[in-house]
């Protein structure tokens, strides 16, 4: 078991390295193919009409002129052993895992990640609770009343939920719920520890918006899983034993049909912990997603790398946890 976890973690580290290297290549390689010079890259960070001296200074500062391998090596070295950061006036110690300093805001990327994660965490956990409760119950009810009016209505709404983009549902709900009807305060983030009620009330709308999308997906998945499970032989066996229908559904059908959902849920949560970009952007929440987007838009390599590495770590770890949980839930895949 321990060996299994260690092996998987080792694989995770390797994967993160590969992902960061690929990100590096995309960041530098793709623009290069499109004809972007290192001068052009430097010019993105310079003011208007930058002189060649200014561009040279920026290139040197960010190391754009060094070979890619050296730049990547420096990144890895800083991540593993830490680094010092020169503000021009003083040298700041940046302990491992040092992901560098933003080209735009000059802030430590690690600090920013730590600062922003609680926001994404709050958003995703709240939404996940809602979408699991709502999505799974609707999916189960729909499956049990397959073909009924409820089932058709639920699946219609679910189809809408899956198809409508978050920036549409989000902006629409903001315009009506907050601005027109004034039912909820404007969306913002405050610490859960300070005031749980305020924390929740200012996040309800993004929770619901994000949960709407996922609840729709989970309702469809649950319904499909339930329908499949209900036609399994072991459900017939359970009935043949004389079990009441309620026991058949809760104990036999639900457990089996929710297990595959675990994998999906783990991946979704892992991905979203890395940043719920659209939701964060729509509701102006300053989580990892908006940080990543700012990084990409601002050609801010350290921020891009930091957020990508973090997101991939979340996905990898979530996968590992799912695999371990799967062993608990499904005895067939239990690891010795």
């Amino acid at each position, binding site marked *: 078991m321990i060996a299994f976890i260690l092996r998987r973690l080792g694989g995770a580290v390797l994967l993160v390295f590969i992902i960061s290297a690929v990100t590096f290549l995309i960041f530098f390689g793709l623009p290069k193919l499109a004809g972007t010079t290192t001068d052009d890259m430097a010019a993105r960070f310079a003011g208007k009409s930058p002189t060649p001296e200014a*561009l040279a200074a920026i290139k040197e500062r960010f190391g754009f002129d060094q070979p890619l391998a050296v730049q990547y090596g420096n990144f890895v070295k800083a991540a593993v052993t830490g680094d010092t950061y020169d503000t021009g006036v003083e040298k700041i110690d940046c302990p491992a895992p040092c992901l560098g300093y933003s080209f735009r805001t000059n802030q430590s990327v690690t600090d920013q990640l730590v600062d922003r994660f609680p926001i994404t965490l709050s958003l995703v956990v709240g939404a996940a609770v809602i979408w699991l409760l709502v999505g799974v119950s609707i999916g189960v009810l729909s499956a049990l009343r397959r073909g009924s009016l409820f089932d058709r209505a639920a699946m219609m709404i679910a189809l809408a939920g899956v198809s409508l983009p978050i920036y549409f549902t989000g902006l629409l709900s903001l315009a009506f719920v907050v601005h027109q009807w004034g039912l909820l305060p404007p969306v913002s983030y405050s610490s859960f520890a300070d005031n749980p009620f305020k924390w929740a009330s200012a996040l309800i709308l993004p929770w619901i918006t994000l949960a709407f999308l996922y609840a729709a997906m989970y309702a469809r998945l649950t319904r499909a899983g339930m329908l499949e499970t209900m036609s399994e032989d072991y459900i017939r066996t359970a009935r043949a034993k004389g079990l009441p229908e309620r026991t058949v559904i809760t104990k036999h059908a639900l457990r089996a049909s929710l297990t595959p959902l675990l994998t999906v849920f783990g991946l979704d949560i892992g991905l979203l912990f890395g940043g719920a970009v659209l939701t964060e952007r729509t509701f102006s929440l300053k989580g990892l997603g908006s940080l990543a987007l700012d990084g990409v838009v601002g050609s801010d390599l350290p921020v891009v790398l930091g957020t990508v590495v973090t997101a991939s770590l979340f996905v990898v770890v979530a996968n590992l946890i799912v695999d371990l949980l799967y062993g608990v839930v499904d005895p067939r895949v239990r690891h010795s």
Partner: protein
Amino acid sequence: MKSRPRILAASSAGVVLLGLGLTACGGGGDEKTADGAGFEAAVGKVVNPSDKKGGTLRMAISSDIESTDPGDMYYAWSTNYVRLYSRMLLTYASKPGDEGRKPSPDLAEGLGVPSADKKTWTYKLRRGMKYEDGTEIKAKDIKYAVARTFDRAVLRHGPSYFSNVLDAKGYKGPYKDKNLDNFKGVETPDDYTVVFKLKDPFTEFNELVNFSGQTAPVPQDKDKGERYGLHPISSGPYKWEKDYQPGKGGTLVPNSNWDQSTDTNRKQLPARIETIAGLNAEELDNQLLKGQIHVDLAGSGVQDNARKSILTDPKLKAQADNPPGGFHWYNPIDMKVVPNLECRKAMVWAADRDAMWRAYGGDVGGEIATSIMPPDVEGREKGTDYYTKAEKGYKGNVEEAKKSLAACGKPQGFETTMIYREDRPKEKGVAIALQQSLARVNIKLNLKGFPANTYTSDQAGSPSFMQKNNVGIGTFGWLSDWPTGYGYLWALSDKAAILPSGNVNIAQIDDPQINEAWKKSYTTVDAAERAKLYNMIDDRLRSQAAYMPNVYAKSLLFRPSTLNNVFFHKGFGMYNYSTLGVTQ
């Protein structure tokens, strides 16, 4: 100024449906327009004049502030905003109308006094000016602030005028060279005198000093290099409560060591000023229209949905202004890619100016442009139309275009690429209008869109890219650094302005007449004489068909009724921020 790429990019995410909902929510209908001072009321005069103190002023921006370091910012709204916590040697007068365009003394007792050869400019500091911690502001602090701007690796965003014009051979900035005495570009004979030494004569040095935050004093022992912007030391009416948090925002609180009696350009009315960065553009408009946000910091106007709401609701419209924001959206024609004047003329002749103007939203969006300099530039003349007519309904002149093509030796037409910012629907609209109207004379434009965040550096700003990809024409917008012909035109037209990256002389024009006129302007003392030179350069740019005029942008600005002392400031091209107050 760079053309606010991040801000305008956000407008493309508009959801049309929302406009309907918002119109409904704002439409009080039967209510009297009691609290709106009237459409365009803040242009030319002050709306809600009041010295009422207290309340929280809430400002927001959909992107982020490029930097809060006064020496490291370039956007017009940044230098407007920085006046809340920084004083400079000179600054724009906080006045509505044309007076707002002029430099006025701030920390200095008066405007700078040039030597006879215009190579030495001397400023006298007021005495007793203080930082937020109570220490006095000295001449050496301004010298240090200017010295900082020499290190382009640390202060990357700000203007580079000082390092370009000051006579400080080989000086690398105070981070690489800790001894400030090695910086010869600025001298401080005593604590209250600042003397700038220029390499070459330059007559608009006061304007240069005036327009940016780079002469805001920085105490050397408080400088944190790249990270100084996270908590700059205040010399203005407000100071930072805590560090500014990039991407999130920060709060300004009154600075008790600032003295209203020494400062005619600022007020200290709100008890708090909160700045929110990264607020979704649509949401920002929603909150602005409801008065929950008082100021859209970017100052470039509301998005399409809010625009619809404002224009269709008289009550909202009475709280809005529609002044020219200082931008001219024009179309540079690369003279290296289309070297023959007749061919360029054909492009201008064929252009459907009416459709191009409509792409920018018609009357509310802007005015059809004649000169390259926009109207609010000092001494600017309307100029003659070359190969076009700046009129609504003018669809181009196919006959003339064909004649020019024949004269160019390409009666069968030619093919070139046109680039634009793909995330800006208006630029795309212009590109399509041009593509269609030029197709009438068999000039085939291949349209290519690029992301706004690389457009000015990698594509339009890169002459090698333009040539390699046969890019004959593009879209571009430009705002002057300061409202004179030099501030607007120099980077577009001087040979010396052509740069390998981040280039603004996109036409790559290298014209002996223009180069000569620039040289002459540096020693021409009389502003009116200089304006003549500038108008001549402008005329030349158009007669050479190097730049195709398009639209002088107008912004639709909204001022909630609770906002006091609001007026449109011509120097910044938006409301002035340093005097605002709020009614709770």
